[in-house]
C-alpha cells in the first residue's frame, strides 16, 4: 500500500497527555433478556494506547466494543470518554459519538454515496464544514489509506479491503479521540487482510488510541500495548502481547490460544 508521508494529517490529539485514562469502563453489565452478555467488566484505556480485545465468539468482546459508543445500551455500570459519561440519547450522544471513530466488520459504507461523499458526510453534517474544505480533508485521509484514486466510485465497485480502508478514512475524518475496530478483517479475503492491518499499524504508530477486536495475533504482537482476553462476558486476563501469547496466565486463555494456533 501507499505509505503516508510522515507528519501529513496525523490524527490531532490536542487535549490530555499520553498515558492518562481516556476510556473508562466501570462495573458494566449487559443483559439480552436473561442472558448476561457482559459481567462486571472494568477496563481502562489510556490515551495513545492500543488495546486488543481477544476471546472466543460469544465472549462479549464485540458487545463491549459497541457499548463504548452506545450502539449497544448497557444494563448497569458506567462508561466515560475523556471524563464525560455517555449520554443516554439525543444530540449529546450524537456529539460524543463524533469523538469515537468506529470501523465495522462489514464495512457499512453508505451504499448510495460515492467514496468521497462517504467520507465528507460527517464533517459536513456534524461539524458544519464547508464542502470544499471537507473534500480536501477527505482526499487527504483517502490518500493516506491508499484509496484516493477511487474517490468517485460507489462502494460496491471496490474490493473488500479497499472498502474497509475507506471506512477507516471515514472515521478518521471526524478527528476522533479514540477508534473502535470491531473485527475489521474478519469479513475480508485473506489476500486483503494485510492491506487493512497495515493501515491499522500505521495508525497505531502515529499514536491513535485504539480498541481493536481481532484474532490477528500478528497484529496484536506488532502494534498492541495490551491484550485483553475475554470469555463468557468477563475479562479473564490482561497482559502485554508477548507475555499473553507465549505464557498466558489462565487456563481459558491457554485453551483458546491452542485452538487458534491449530486453526491457523
Amino acid at each position, binding site marked *: 500500500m501507499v505509505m503516508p508521508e510522515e507528519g501529513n494529517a496525523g490524527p490531532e490529539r490536542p487535549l490530555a497527555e499520553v498515558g492518562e485514562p481516556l476510556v473508562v469502563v466501570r462495573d458494566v453489565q449487559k443483559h439480552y433478556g436473561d442472558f448476561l452478555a457482559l459481567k462486571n467488566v472494568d477496563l481502562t484505556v489510556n490515551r495513545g494506547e492500543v488495546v486488543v480485545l481477544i476471546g472466543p465468539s460469544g465472549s462479549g468482546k464485540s458487545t463491549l466494543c459497541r457499548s463504548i459508543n452506545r450502539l449497544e445500551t448497557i444494563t448497569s455500570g458506567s462508561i466515560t470518554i475523556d471524563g464525560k459519561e455517555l449520554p443516554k440519547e439525543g444530540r449529546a450522544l*450524537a456529539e*460524543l459519538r463524533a469523538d469515537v471513530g468506529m470501523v465495522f466488520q*462489514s464495512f*457499512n459504507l*453508505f*451504499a*448510495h454515496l460515492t467514496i468521497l461523499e462517504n467520507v465528507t458526510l460527517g464533517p459536513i*453534517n456534524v461539524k458544519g464544514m464547508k464542502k470544499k474544505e471537507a473534500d480536501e480533508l477527505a482526499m487527504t485521509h483517502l490518500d493516506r489509506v491508499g484509496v484516493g484514486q477511487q474517490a468517485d466510485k460507489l462502494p460496491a465497485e471496490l474490493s473488500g479491503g479497499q472498502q474497509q480502508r475507506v471506512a477507516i478514512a*471515514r472515521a478518521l475524518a*471526524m478527528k476522533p479521540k479514540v477508534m473502535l475496530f470491531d473485527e475489521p478483517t474478519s469479513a475480508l479475503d485473506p489476500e486483503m487482510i494485510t492491506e487493512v492491518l497495515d493501515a491499522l499499524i500505521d495508525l497505531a504508530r502515529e499514536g491513535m488510541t485504539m480498541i481493536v477486536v481481532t484474532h490477528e495475533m500478528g497484529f496484536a504482537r506488532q502494534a498492541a500495548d495490551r491484550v485483553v482476553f475475554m470469555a463468557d462476558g468477563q475479562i479473564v486476563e490482561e497482559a502485554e502481547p508477548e507475555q499473553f501469547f507465549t505464557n498466558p496466565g489462565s487456563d481459558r486463555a491457554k485453551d483458546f490460544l491452542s485452538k487458534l494456533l491449530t486453526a491457523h
Partner: protein
Amino acid sequence: MRRLIAALAGAIMLLATLAAVPAAADVQPLFPVNQDVTLQGSPTYDRMKDRDGVVVGVKEDQPGLGAIDVVTGERSGFDVDIARWIAASLGFAEDQITYKAIASANREQAIKNGDIDYYVGTYSITGARKKQIDFAGPYLTTGQSLLVPRGSGIRSEKDLGPDTKVCSATGSAPIQNIKKAFPDVPTTEFDVYSACVEALRNGQVDAVTTDQPILLGYAALYPDEMEVVGEPFTEENYGVGLLKGDDALRSWINRLFTDHPGTWQKIYDSNLGSTGVTIPQPEVDNYRSTGESSVASDDAGPRAGVITDNLDLWGEALRNTLLLFFAGGALAVVLGFVVGAMRVSPVPIARAVGAVYVNLIRNTPLTVIFFFFAFGYPALGLPTPGFTVLAIGALGIYTATYIAEVIRAGINTVPAGQAEAARAIGLPFTKVMTLVVLPQAFRSVVPPMMSVLIALLKNTTVAAGFSVAELGVIRANLSERGEDALAVLLCVAAIFVVMVLVLSAIQRTIENRWKVAR
C-alpha cells in the same frame, strides 16, 4: 360505491316489499284494479304478464313525491301514486308491484336494460333523454325553485351571487342550469337531495335548488326552519319513462291521464294539496307519431361525441381529478414520510403516536373519512375551506397511512449497519434518516409506493359523492345531457388506464435511475 349503496337499498326494498305482502290485504286499494285489459303490441306489458307483476322505478328520498317510510317500508307520494294508478289500469294490484329505487343518473340505463318496466320519479322530459327512451305524459308541469332558511336574504333566483352557495344533486339538470345561468354562483353537489338539505341546515350552503314540488316536500318536513321562495324559473315536464319504441304502452298511459282528470286531481290533492301551491294537470304530449318511433336508436357504443361534445365537463373533471391526485399525493407522501420515520424512531412516544395514527386511519373506510371531512369537520365550527380542499385532506390523510407503512417496510430493507455507521460518525436521528436511511429505502419503495399512488388516483373518484366534480361525477353529468352511460364509463375507464400507464412509466424511469448497488 354509490351503485353499491343503491343496489343494497334496492335489495332491502325488495325484501321490505315482500315482507309487506301479507299485510297488503287490509290496505284499501287506492285505485280499482282493471280486470279487463286488452293491450296489444307492448313488449313491456307482455313482460309484465309473463311475470304476473310490475317492476316500477321510483325515488324514495323526495317527501311528497316519492318517499319511503323506513320503519314500515310503506311508499308514498304523488309520483308513487301515479305509478300505482298505471299499474292498476294494467290489471295489477298493489301486491303485484315491486318498487325499485333508481338514482337519477342510472334511469335511462335501467329502462334500456329492462330492470324496470316504467319509471315515475320527477323525471323531466328532455330531448336528450328522448334519444334513449320514450316518455308518456307529462303528468306534472313544474319548475326549478329555491329552498332557503327562513328569513334569509334570498327571495328569488335574482338574489343569487358569488356569496351564496347553491346545492343540488350531483350532475342534475338544476345544478347545470344554475352553472349556465349564474356562472359566478358557487355550487355544491351531493348524490342525494337530503344531503343538500342537511348542508343547508348546518349552514354549509345558502340555498338548495331543484324542482319546486321536491323542495315543497322538504319545506314541509322543517316548516320552522326553511321555506321555498320565488316563482319557478325553469319549466320541467315530468313524464313516465318507458322503453323506447313501446308506443302501445305510451298511448295507453297517455289515454289514462287524459280520460281520468278526476283521478289525477285526487292524487294531487292527497299528496301535494297541503303545500298550498296549485298546479293544473298538464296536457299529455303525443310527441311522436307511431311511425317515427320505430327509428332505431344509434347509441350502441362509444362515439367521439361523448367527449368532443362535452369538452367543458371533461376538462373540469380531469382538472379536478388531477388536482385531487397531485395535492392529495403530495400531502400523503410528506405526511407518510414523517409518520413512517416516527414508527422507527428511538423515542417511544413518537412510535406510539405513529402506530395509533396508522391503525386508526387505515382501519377506517375512505368513505367514512370523507363523511367526517365533509360533514363532521364543518360541525366543529372551524372555518371551512371548501369541499375540494376537504377532499384533498381526506385523501392525503388516508393515503399517508399506506405511504407510512411502505416507508417503514423500505426502512427495514436497509441493512442495520447503514444506520449504525451513520450514528457512529455522530449524525443525529433526523440526519441518519434523511441522509442515509431514507435515500436508500426510497429506491426499494418505488414499486409499492407507486401502487399506493395508483390506488390514490382511483380513490379520487370517491370524492364524487362529496361535491367535487371529478371524473367519477361525469357519468351523472353526461347522463343528464343524454349521453349513453356505458359509453361515458368506457371513456372514464380509458382515461384512468392512460393515467396509470403514465405513472407506471414514471416508476420504471425512477427505478432505473436510482438502482442501488450492493
